[in-house]
């Protein structure tokens, strides 16, 4: 076989992992199957649905299904498991609960990581910023209204402080 496995360092949610990774694995494969963090979901695997969204080291939303794992050698990422810190939910997670922005929940990790990136990019996102940041992730049951209400709530809280 052509593709040699390579030793790879990856920091996920602040924890360092050293792994033997095949070129055949995407970042999503490594996060879910090798590290065992199954919060990040596999959806369309073609870049349309956004449920595999994670945050890169700049806090931006990226699709873990469309990038080879080896591309991330030495990098740091945040997955849905990293939003909760010391047992405390992230402000966005609390807002999603308050606003009922979850129904079946399958897309929720991707929706939350996309929302996190919107807040990371601009602590006070405009309506346009929210639409722009959330257009790449699809929810087919709750819809996007409650999600946007939850994000706006966190944004307005940021606006006050």
């Amino acid at each position, binding site marked *: 076989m052509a593709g*040699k496995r*390579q030793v790879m360092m990856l920091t996920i949610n602040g924890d360092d992992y050293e792994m033997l990774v095949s070129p055949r694995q995407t970042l999503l494969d490594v996060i879910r199957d090798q590290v065992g963090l199954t919060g990040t979901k596999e959806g369309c695997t073609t870049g349309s649905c956004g449920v595999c969204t994670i945050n890169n080291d700049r806090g*931006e939303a990226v699709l873990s299904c469309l990038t*080879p794992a080896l591309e991330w050698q030495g990098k740091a990422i945040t997955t849905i498991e990293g939003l909760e810190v010391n047992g405390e939910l992230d402000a966005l997670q609390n807002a999603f609960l308050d606003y009922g922005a979850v129904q079946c929940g399958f897309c929720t990790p991707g929706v939350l990581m996309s929302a996190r990136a919107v807040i990371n990019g601009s602590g006070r996102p405009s309506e346009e910023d929210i639409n722009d940041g959330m257009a*790449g*992730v699809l929810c087919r049951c709750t819809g996007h209204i409650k999600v946007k209400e939850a994000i706006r709530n966190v944004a307005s809280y940021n606006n006050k402080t």
Partner: protein
Amino acid sequence: MLLPDHEFSKPANLQDSLAKLANTSGEIKLLAGGTDVIFNMRGRLFNPDVLLSISELPELQGIEQLADGTVSLGAGCRLTELERHPLVRQYPGLAAGFRAVASRHVRNMATLGGNLNLDTRCWYANQTAEWREAKGRCLKTGLKVCHAIKSSDICVALNASDVAPALLALDASVVLASLKGERTVKLADYYTDDGVEHTVRRPDEIMVRVLFPKNSDRMAYIKETARKGNDFAYATIAASADGQGQQCSRVRIVLGSLTTRPVLLLKTATVIGERGLDDAAIEAAVTEVRDELGALTNLYTPAAYKGRIARVLVRKALLQLREL
């Protein structure tokens, strides 16, 4: 599903990348943002022996204005970075072109070079390998058959780059590097009529920069699509002109996503260049559009629709241009 088996290589600099490209016998695919290449590898349309990552080459970075005013954009720049850069924002039509691509998620990964070299798309080829198996291979996968347009002996897959029309309206050129040195190709000469070998980039070359002359032309940019986020275009238009109001002499009109290449509408632009942007001239220009587009196919949308949307977009863009 795992990707097809391949060797993953990520040299530290351009020179080593070009050497790898020149000295590897098997098929190599360049990987930048990955949003197109990995998509096509998942669908087993791309089965490279080597995936050569150029995503972090320092030589492909940088957004700057050169001493003579020429704007230089690194081919490895991500679309998000480009659309927000102050120099790019001086060209609102171009910024709109970057912003039109897919979603924020994709633009955080995808690069300028990647978008310009986006593989052509077709409803037959861009399916899963299992789906394609039912009908067998096609021109894209080594058989002289087109399943999308039965009578075609050439691949008619569409060029779906949203960025190319905007850059063509700016009269951009691309710089290609190989071990032999660099060559500059006009973007207008970069694409071909063959959906398989759809650019003139040679296998040993890497696109390093995109250049366009400094200008203060107006530009209108419209991407016609089903939904704002994440969709490929039905058609894209970029139209630029000098002057102001109805007065103009230098005009460029480019339609994208209709054929294997973005189409520069020379005759249509000449009408406006000679007569200005008054209503009668715009209508006269619109009548030239269909003939200039040449043969259209029923790929994704009917050819009749393509001809019509092209005329509608040209009118819309020229009317917008007049107000800029």
